[in-house]
């Protein structure tokens, strides 16, 4: 299946995901969409270290990592850097706190390729100061955004 990605600007993305297969496939998908992967972290310490080292445009963060449900704190730490937009990517959206720990929104697992593409296009638009209308399918915005 060919996916069109002409319009969306390339993003530098950090993937925080403990499931190796999901991470690997996500890397392929992101590359196909024309984005650059700056790193893949499976634990909270790796994620925070990689975030500091690379200052990514976007961090896709799962809630459950190798060291437990530490994704929420990872999101909070990464979102503290104004250069990084954090998006949760989880099958466990119920664990996301009310303030979304500084994240913009959540891509619910199991996600479709279109949901990932749409969410990243939305985030890219937000980062350039646009206010896109309504969140795409499969992407839920944090309250107040």
């Amino acid at each position, binding site marked *: 299946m060919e996916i069109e990605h002409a319009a969306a600007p390339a993003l530098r993305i950090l993937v925080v995901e403990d499931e190796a297969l999901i991470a690997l496939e996500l890397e392929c998908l992101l590359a196909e969409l024309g984005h650059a992967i700056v790193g893949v972290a499976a634990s909270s310490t790796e994620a925070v270290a990689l975030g500091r080292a690379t200052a990514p445009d976007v961090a896709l963060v799962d809630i459950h990592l190798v060291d437990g449900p530490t994704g929420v704190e990872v999101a909070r730490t990464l979102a503290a850097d104004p250069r990084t937009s954090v998006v949760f990517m989880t099958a466990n959206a119920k664990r996301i706190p009310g303030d979304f720990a500084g994240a913009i929104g959540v891509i619910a697992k199991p996600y479709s390729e*279109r949901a990932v593409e749409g969410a990243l296009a939305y985030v890219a638009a937000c980062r350039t100061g646009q206010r896109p209308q309504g969140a795409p399918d499969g992407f839920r915005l944090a309250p107040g955004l």
Partner: protein
Amino acid sequence: MIVTDARAPDNPITWANDAFVAHTGYGLPELLGRNCRMLQGPGTDAAEIARIGAALAAEEPISAELLNYRKDGTPFWNAMTITPVRDADGVAYFYAAQADMSHTHQLELAMRGTNDELERQVAARTTALSAALEQKTALLHEVDHRVKNNLQVISSLMLLKARRTPEGEARDALQGMAERIGALSTAHRMLYAEGDCTHFDLGEFATELLSDINAGLDADRLRIEAQVEPIAVAAAMAAPLALLIHELTANALHHAFHDGRSGTVSITAQRHADGIRLTVRDDGVGLEAAPPNPAGFGRNLAEMVVRQLRGRIAWAAATPGTRVEIDIPLRGSA
């Protein structure tokens, strides 16, 4: 009954009837000349005493209830009515009639004790039930989370293998399977996203699934049109219906336009008295002209699912193209 002298110092008892004597256990000589407070004791309510005192000072009648004590020390609940008796110079006497209310008070106390005990038991059971419910809810979330995560892993596995497989039949098959898993995943995600996990909105699902499929199409050549009403179906039907819509759409896209022609696949779903009517129509080459497809997995799968849902499926030639009509009965409908 007693009478007290309002004009003598400290309002002493001047008369008591036999019943009063018998009830309190004091002899008449022990009572005469003394104030009624001789009957009070450690359990007597000071506020109630003050209320009586205020009424006497104001020379007004009053009804009150006090815990009093007999000569032998046993308590009793004394309900009294005190009335000032006037002569030409003002209040001369107070007349008081009493009734023993101990029995009523005991009943009240017993009742309160029983109520307290019942409430304690209810509270204990509610706590136990809440804890059990909390545990089950946590377990349900855990299972839901695992199902979703596993669907994602399965889908990733398929797609990874597809990416590493040379273009051709095997790769198409892997991608086809990943799409089917995707359809099931979308159904599962929608099923548990809302509070109500016993029902599933077919319209909402179809819109999202068909947008997913549409996104993968060559927009200049192929198009999907959908008119699916919001239809609530039982949760158990979500997965088979999701597969069915996916199969028929994918089947039409693969076979009707295999020669590179352009066209449209239209999908409609309507609720009627007996169930759902689902129509998938394409304006492609038509059944007769499509190349023979001995594997025919998509069509087979669709027919199996319809049978599982106890429905009927009919494939017919449209002009141009093919029209598939499916009737699925809904439980609870006439």
